[in-house]
């Protein structure tokens, strides 16, 4: 039983954590692609920036001597999300909107977003240096243990408080996004514009408004993802830049332009990564009796070594593109 608990803690919990972060990031990328038809490379850095915005706000709140029963970074997250959404809107106004107005090609916008990436990372390093920060310098990072004696195990199911909060944030975001896209007038207009931009214009849909709403949603979700990732690990200037490629892979695997696809793709890649680096010997050892004698279990039986964890996303991406080029859900073609 302990082995199963170990599996749960190391694969299911870790996979879900990774999946949540990927999903929150990939949704933004896929929405921006659906509406504006370009790959927003700077999305990872919008996540990192969101993490730093939250960090500053949390620092201010802590300095004011206010304490909460929950991590301060989580409590100030809604405010940070609003700020990040406004900054996303500002980035569009300053860098992408002028290009769109001149009828720039998607590849031009992609290059511009690489510029924005460098700019955001540079600004963060200018202000905060290249060091690592933690949200838990002043307060403890609580561990949540669920006793498993009733399962006949001695090892507890364990996850940190940020993990649980990340699950909640993701669930709330996904449900809210679902209702927004299927019930609200603007959400439906967003889907309409992703489906057929020319017809959306002909119908009199205010496409400028839809673009603004897209940035607000993508920016706030990026901030949530970056903050929750930083709460789980630590905050550093290249926090999310390192995972922007798997996040893109998640969006593509799910079908670009398809919000639910991005969520599914995010979790698929998250679980795939943890499953592939898991040492299966742990699970097989208790049942080693059923193997013939000449089979001896190796010490480490993982599908790929831990260092190659990130490559799993790309293997799945390549397979998806070969088997189902439009993604799991039928997405918009580039």
């Amino acid at each position: 039983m302990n082995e199963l608990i170990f599996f749960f803690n190391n694969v299911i919990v870790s996979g879900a954590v990774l999946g949540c972060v990927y999903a929150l990031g990939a949704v933004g990328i896929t929405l921006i692609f659906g509406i504006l038809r370009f790959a927003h490379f700077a999305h990872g850095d919008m996540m990192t920036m969101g993490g730093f915005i939250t960090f500053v706000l949390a620092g201010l709140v802590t300095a004011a001597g206010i304490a909460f029963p929950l991590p301060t970074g989580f409590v100030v997250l809604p405010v940070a999300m609003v700020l990040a959404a406004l900054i996303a809107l500002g980035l569009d106004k300053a860098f992408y909107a002028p290009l769109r107005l001149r009828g720039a090609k998607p590849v031009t916008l992609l290059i511009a977003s690489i510029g924005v990436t460098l700019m955001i990372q540079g600004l963060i390093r200018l202000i905060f240096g290249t060091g690592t920060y933690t949200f838990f310098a002043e307060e403890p990072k609580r561990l949540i243990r669920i006793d498993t004696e009733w399962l006949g195990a001695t090892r507890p199911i364990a996850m940190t408080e940020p993990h649980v909060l990340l699950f909640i944030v993701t669930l709330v975001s996904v449900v809210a996004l679902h209702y927004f896209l299927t019930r609200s007038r603007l959400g439906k207009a967003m889907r309409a514009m992703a489906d057929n931009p020319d017809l959306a214009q002909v119908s009199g849909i205010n496409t400028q408004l839809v673009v603004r709403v897209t940035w607000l949603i993508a920016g706030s979700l990026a901030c949530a993802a970056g903050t929750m990732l930083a709460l789980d690990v630590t905050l550093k200037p290249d926090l999310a830049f390192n995972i922007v490629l798997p996040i893109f892979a998640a969006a593509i695997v799910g079908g670009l332009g398809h919000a639910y696809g991005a969520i599914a793709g995010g979790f698929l890649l998250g679980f795939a990564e943890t499953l592939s680096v898991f040492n299966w010997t742990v699970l097989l050892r208790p049942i080693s009796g059923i193997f013939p004698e000449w089979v001896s279990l190796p010490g480490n039986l993982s599908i790929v070594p831990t260092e190659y964890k990130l490559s799993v996303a790309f293997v799945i991406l390549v397979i998806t593109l070969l088997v189902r080029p439009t993604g799991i859900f039928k997405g918009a073609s580039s």
Partner: protein
Amino acid sequence: MALLSLEKVVGGYGGAPILNGVDIAIERSDIGVIVGPNGAGKSTTLKAIFGLLKVTGGAILFEGEEIANSLPDKLVPRGLSFVPQEKNVFTSLSVEENLEMGAFTRRDDFRPTRDWVYSMFPVLAEKRRQAAGELSGGQRQMVAMGRALMSQPKLLMLDEPSAGLSPRYVIEIFEQIVKVNAEGVGILMVEQNARQALAFATRGFVLAGGQNRFTGTGPELIADPEVAKSFLGG
């Protein structure tokens, strides 16, 4: 005063103009049909009215006011609607959501209009929850017309509504257009099935080379031996 009038309209996509002085006048009670050979500027005329290309000369008046080079989000609330020839439904949205998008510019309760559209196209009410992309060509054309009617237009413009439809559906779509007109919506459409469309047109415009060649009621144009010989295939 005509509902819509074009006076010597010149325009194109930049470069040489495609329209070289088009004149059109439509009342709310009219069914106007624009016919002519390929490249005559028929579809271009509709796009020029709807602000989808640059008008460089002449005047486009809607209810007496100049609307040339206005964008659709300004034109739709004024009572002008446009059904493009191709890709005229949101394929991944349900029939009902398609209709709702047609009412995007309205802030009032559009449900009575939706029920009115359903009463005109009962098959759409049956398939209201289905994705528009799953419907047949004829049904899609109804979704497209329904979407355009949701803004309660005074004038509905259709670009080749019968394109790609089987003969049975062509007749059905034409019947629907006459029905919509009877409900008090002016019609201006471009048609390849010229003879069939002119038969019920109260105003016909024969364009060639971006200019009017002949203007008259539909039956007049059909009866004109010159029009018949040059533009209606004898």
